């Protein structure tokens, strides 16, 4: 019954229809207010404040409720005066003030606030989600840049600026990363594993290892956290899907769009979508014939076959190119400019594949007709991810098996390869937005008007970002300052995409489901991207022999041995045995990991069971609501027929009904479902 006072002044008029007088209505509202205040007084002060803030009333009513609650609390407290509650009240108030201060401070730190608002105002929430994703990645890189610089690079620079320039600066290094940069702190080879003796002693090997471990751990935690959070809000609540989307379209109006043209554009899109959903509904009733279904299956199979063949072909090309390069690398003089430039062949080919093949995939997806546009998007994403990840897989396989045996300072070599990939990928994405979107715009507006202005393809752009971030994660062990490049790259891409968006592109027509796509992107960033990079780095640290002539781990059989040696030395120091105990009984113990896995599995099973139970509950509750609705309609009919029977002449009633046409249908709605 409580809701009726929230529903605003409009409902009161309807009570009037029921024959209630003004006084009765006022009394009713008064009663409800008293009830509400009583409820609120019982709550702890923090929950009470949140409840009041969340009451759907206007400001003055909320203020009124608040003062009533406050005075009720005061009178209650005067009976039980304790210094304890006073203290907790004061503590909570100062804590709250501190929290508000933190929120304000965070507001100041947020970059691009106005730019993001502008983008959201012109292109809507779905395009905005791309830029927010970009910003989120940027934050990751700033963080890794900070910890890498503080814990690895800075001590190394202070201790021994171990830079011996074999060659002068020629300019090509900016692209290739070799030559001038070869022995700098940019790459693994620029560090050495000595213990810096200045008190307190600083062990570079351990610093290198633990910084990387901490970075990957924090990245993993933050990814899992954001993935779970966005999954919870965007998928779990949505689990009960409805047949049509017409109603959802209506409540998806983007209030943040303020640009006049964009508003008009959104209106047109919405109109088209509504018309489409209507015609789809009619079409769906017509069942596909057998031959049509066969044709569809054949199309799906053919498109998958072509895309898999394309991906395999690209991988093979990269593989043979790499084999070729190893041979030529060994045979030729390293200081030759031509040799140096030839190292750019692999990154250029890889970036070219990443640029061209997705376009082919989108052509293929035109042949491959799907009734559901979302399935189409997901399939396209799946194909792109398969391609990009298998190419990265080939590259990693090459770095892990061929390079360590043939190159002297192989970690730096891998770091340089990743550096080249990152740089060339950046250049290609510059050209991609300039030539791709700009030329497409020119063609669409000037030459072939039927094509129209290109849409901003969020999926492809996000996948490019994920690909770039995977590279950055892979490279971080081999080139600790790679986040600098990644930071600059993302920063420039932000502005580039913004300009390209406003000059060349239009808002994507299918704009729905932005929130769910965001979850998919974070999941993709976690699963093939982060997990792949992590396992690669872990494999390097655990099993590969570090190069003997350079780097912090020179002379060890594998980098992880540094930690083992440290645990052994620590054991000798009294009072620190627990570190080596943890090392031998937890980290080096299979049983521990076995138990951990078992516990996680059991927990997952329990939670899955709970989720199943909840689903069942939701289904039952929904049936109950439908039944209650039927009851309501039944009772309403019964009431009407009884009224008619009572006054068979019924002149006054029928007049009443004719003057208030909404009477029969609407008045029951003023009572909420939970009456």
């Amino acid at each position, binding site marked *: 019954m409580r809701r009726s006072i929230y529903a605003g002044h409009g409902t009161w008029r309807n009570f009037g229809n029921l024959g209630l007088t003004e006084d009765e209505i006022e009394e009713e509202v008064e009663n409800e207010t008293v009830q509400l205040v009583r409820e609120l007084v019982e709550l702890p002060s923090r929950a009470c404040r949140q409840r009041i803030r969340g009451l759907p009333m206007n400001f003055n009513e909320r203020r009124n409720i608040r003062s009533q609650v406050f005075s009720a609390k005061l009178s209650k407290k005067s009976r039980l005066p304790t210094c304890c509650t006073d203290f907790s009240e004061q503590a909570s108030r100062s804590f709250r003030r501190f929290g508000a201060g933190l929120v*304000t401070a965070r507001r100041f730190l947020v970059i691009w606030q106005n730019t993001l608002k502008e983008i959201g105002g012109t292109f809507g929430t779905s395009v905005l989600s791309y830029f927010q994703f970009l910003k989120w990645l940027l934050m990751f890189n700033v963080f890794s840049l900070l910890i890498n610089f503080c814990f690895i690079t800075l001590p190394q620079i202070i201790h021994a600026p171990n830079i011996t320039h074999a060659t002068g600066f020629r300019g090509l290094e900016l692209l290739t990363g070799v030559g001038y940069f070869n022995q700098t702190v940019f790459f693994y080879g620029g560090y050495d594993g000595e213990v810096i003796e200045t008190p307190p002693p600083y062990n570079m090997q351990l610093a290198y290892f633990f910084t990387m471990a901490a970075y990957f751990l924090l990245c993993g935690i933050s990814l899992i956290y954001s993935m779970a959070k966005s999954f919870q809000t965007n998928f779990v609540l949505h689990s009960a899907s409805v047949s049509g989307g017409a109603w959802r379209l209506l409540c998806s109006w983007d209030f943040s769009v303020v640009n006049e043209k964009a508003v008009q554009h959104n209106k047109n899109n919405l109109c088209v979508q509504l018309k489409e959903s209507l015609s789809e509904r009619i079409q769906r009733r017509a069942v596909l014939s057998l031959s049509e279904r066969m044709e569809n299956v054949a199309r799906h199979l053919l498109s998958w076959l072509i895309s898999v063949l394309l991906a395999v072909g690209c991988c093979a090309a990269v593989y043979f190119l790499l084999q070729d390069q190893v041979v030529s690398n060994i045979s030729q003089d390293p200081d030759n400019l031509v040799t140096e430039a030839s190292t750019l062949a692999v990154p250029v080919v890889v970036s070219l594949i990443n640029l061209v093949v997705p376009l082919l995939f989108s052509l293929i997806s035109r042949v491959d007709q799907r009734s559901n546009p979302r399935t189409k998007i997901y399939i396209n994403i799946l194909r792109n991810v398969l391609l990009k990840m298998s190419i990265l897989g080939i590259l990693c396989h090459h770095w892990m098996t061929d390079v360590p045996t043939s190159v002297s300072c192989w970690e730096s070599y891998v770091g340089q390869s990743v550096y080249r990939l990152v740089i060339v990928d950046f250049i290609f994405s510059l050209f991609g937005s300039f030539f791709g979107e700009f030329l497409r715009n020119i063609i669409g507006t000037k030459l072939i008007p039927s094509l129209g202005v290109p849409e901003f393809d969020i999926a492809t752009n996000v996948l490019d970002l994920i690909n770039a971030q995977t590279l950055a994660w892979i490279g971080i062990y081999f080139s600790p300052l790679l986040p600098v490049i990644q930071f600059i790259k993302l920063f420039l891409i932000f502005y580039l995409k913004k300009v390209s968006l406003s000059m060349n592109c239009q808002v994507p027509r299918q704009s729905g489901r932005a929130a769910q796509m965001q979850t998919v992107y974070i999941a993709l960033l976690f699963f093939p991207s982060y997990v792949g990079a992590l396992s690669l780095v872990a494999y390097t640290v655990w099993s590969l022999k570090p190069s003997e002539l350079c780097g912090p781990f020179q002379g060890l059989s594998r980098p992880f041995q540094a930690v083992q040696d440290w645990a052994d030395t620590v054991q000798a120091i009294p009072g620190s045995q627990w570190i080596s105990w943890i090392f031998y009984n937890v980290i080096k113990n299979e049983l521990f990991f076995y138990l951990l896995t078992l516990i996680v599995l059991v927990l997952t099973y329990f939670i899955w069971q709970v989720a199943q139970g909840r689903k069942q509950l939701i289904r039952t509750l929904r049936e109950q609501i439908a039944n209650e609705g039927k009851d309501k309609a039944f009772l309403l009919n019964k009431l009407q027929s009884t009224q008619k029977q009572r006054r068979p002449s019924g002149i006054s009633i029928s007049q009443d009904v004719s003057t208030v046409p909404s009477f029969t249908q609407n008045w029951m709605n003023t009572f909420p479902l939970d009456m």
Partner: protein
Amino acid sequence: MGTTASQLPKELLSEYQELTFLTKQEILLAHKRFSELAGKEDRHHPNPRVPMSKILMLPELKSNPFRERICQVFSTSDVKDGSLSFEDFLDLLSAFSDSATLEIKSHYAFRIFDFDDDGTLDSSDLEKLVNCLTGDTDDTRLTAEEMRQLISNILEESDIDKDGTVNLSEFQHVISRSPDFVSSFKIVL
């Protein structure tokens, strides 16, 4: 910012902070924009009201198809002219802010879409809603047949208790299945 801060007394500011979802900065910015709208003549009035026509000149609302409904819903004016006092204005911004709860947002969305203020969305409300969304030009307007079909679809999907209208609970139920709603029901100054 210093000048605007001095205009709002400290205890009032903290009360605003406690009763709305806005941060201190947002309240101060809102106050600044509101004073600009109110103009000089009303500045000495203790609680000035800004007429709807002036509120609609805000760039954030100017091209919104629901701008007039928004003003009417948030207005506490006795003559129902859609004029806003500063507190109404804060209410508006608070409901459309990032940190407002889903319940508040869906409540106000419901009232904005409820054109005749009768507490339910019936077919005439839905028709007005669709017209607002698709625009008034002839080529975008839906035909009568399409409109009828659309409204029956909407009711079929969301009218759980089958009484021919959508009430607040049913509306909130639909909203809870549309995860984009929270991010798109947003106006930031």
